[in-house]
């Protein structure tokens, strides 16, 4: 005649295993989603290749994104900018024809945001550009991308690391970046 908790543990083992497996499963599922469809490279209305423009032809970023240097937002070039060149260049390519169609109908191109910060974030491109922060630090090596992909997490902690590393003045004050 004796007493011990072990027999009971034996009885409970299957149930415990089921729970553990389920937990593991959840982790796996989460990871799988994040890994295989991260949604960081959405399909754009026009397959614009930064690799070709910024990479091969060496067009500087701020030739098209003119505002980056003087405004909060970097600004997406409006079609007349595209047409400025493509009115002459490579007019026969299917993608370019699409662009020209937009231009004919005077419709804007509905680009999808790849690097999208929440509305409560105050991120002046101007300050960062003037401070000599490379575009690639946040946007990744765009000049090598055919399809622009978000490489940086764009999370608060990530911003803070940089701000701390560069010892930005009041770089960790909430109201420096929040609004």
């Amino acid at each position, binding site marked *: 005649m004796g*007493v*011990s*908790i072990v*027999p*009971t*543990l034996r*009885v*409970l083992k299957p149930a415990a295993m089921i729970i553990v497996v389920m937990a593991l499963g959840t982790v796996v599922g989460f990871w799988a989603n994040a890994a295989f469809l991260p949604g960081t490279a959405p399909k754009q209305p026009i397959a614009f290749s930064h690799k070709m423009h910024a990479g091969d032809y060496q067009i500087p970023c701020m030739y098209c994104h003119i505002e980056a240097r003087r405004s909060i937002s970097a600004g997406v070039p409006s079609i007349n900018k595209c047409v400025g060149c493509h009115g002459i260049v490579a007019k026969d390519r299917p993608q370019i024809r699409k662009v020209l169609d937009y231009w004919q109908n005077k419709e804007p191109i509905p680009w999808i945001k790849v690097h999208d910060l929440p509305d409560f974030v105050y991120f002046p491109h101007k300050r960062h550009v003037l401070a000599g922060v490379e575009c690639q630090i946040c946007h990744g090596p765009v000049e090598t991308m055919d399809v622009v992909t978000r490489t940086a997490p764009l*999370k*608060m*902690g*990530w911003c*803070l690391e940089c701000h701390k590393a560069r010892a930005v003045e009041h770089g960790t004050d909430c109201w420096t970046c929040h609004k």
Partner: protein
Amino acid sequence: MAAEHNELTYADVNRDVVRSLVETGPKYYVTLGVAVGVFLTCFFFPWFYQLFYGIGAAGMNQPTVWGTYLASFIFWIGLSHSGTLLSCVLHITNSAWRKAMYRSAEAMTLFSLMVAATMVMVHLGRPWFIHWSLPYPNQMELWPNFRSPLLFDVMAISTYLAGSSIFIYMGSIPDFAAVRDRTSGWRHHMYVLLSLGWRGTDTEWHRLGRAYTFLAVLIIPLAVSVHSIVSWDFALSIVPALHQTIFAPYFVVGAIYSGTAGIVTVMFMLRKYMNFERYITELHFDNLGKLLLLLSLIWTYINVLEIFTGWYSGTSTELEALRYKLFGFYAPLYWEMILFCAVAPLLLISRRFRTSFVPMLFLSFAINIGMYTERFLIVATSLSRKYLPDTWGLYVPSLVEISILIGSVAMFVTLFLVFVKIFPSVSIYEVKETMDVPRKGTPQWQTTR
């Protein structure tokens, strides 16, 4: 002491307690069903509505940004005081009459604490971010503000929850063992785990005794600190009539007061519906009654002090706060509180009253209603009469708030009903301790087989 147990044998104790666990009548299921139903309809769904609509679902407004939710929070915290606290004090002072009732008292502590914690969730504007008030490393590299009285609360209450749950568990390990041997099936397995393979050897008893005492010693100051801290949520503000030195003791006393009343209620219920007549006796009600009387007197005294100091200060703010409390919009509530918590308890002077169960039950109800009113008034009256008269306003609880209050009671009842089926709600071995050890010729001289 042993007198009233004369007809009892050790075996009876085991039998009765085990029966209370395994034999479940339809009455129980009905009550449980009702409790759960009320909880869902009055607490859960209204709260969901509030989550979607916003705190605006409640009646709170500009001057009075705190309302019944916070009042209920304090109330439940208060109710939790005396369960464990009382049990600890009595354990250390080694008073025997504790032993039949402390288990359920402690359970009360545990569950009212849980309800209180939920009330915090309900109170918050964005409860889905409540984890930000806990200190854990995060990618935002942010930490809670340890200077805030509210964070004291977070720390204190979590400690208290841990402490009292451990305390009640330790106390019932031997009983789990006893029940383990008398049960079968899933119950058996559960109790095997709960009892950790307790045997009751002299060493185990000794260790348990030591550890239990240490816990008791640690928990008494903890309990006191918890409600002092709750009071500081108010007292550390500079709101007239809240910014008072007396508040901490005031709250602690009030807490123990309502808690003790709560115990009376629970005792009555156990005695009546779990057939523990032979364990919970007039003696307990008598002692609790005395305690209640003492507490009510202290509580009244502090109330008088509050009025006196407020009046004596003579400042416009204090006087207005006082006038508003005594004669303003909420005055009826105030006087109701005085009647229930200061006047009615004077009946306890007579032993006949203390030892008659039903009146005691009603008194305990009255006291707790009064104490809830007190918490409500603390929030409502002072916040609606702050410094700038132009901002004065009126606060009336909304339907959602009221139903959530009712629902929180149902939540408590539900938890308690579950408890009585898992925990031996009367401590087997400590009851035995109060009986004579078996010797030839004593009524205990019988065998179990």
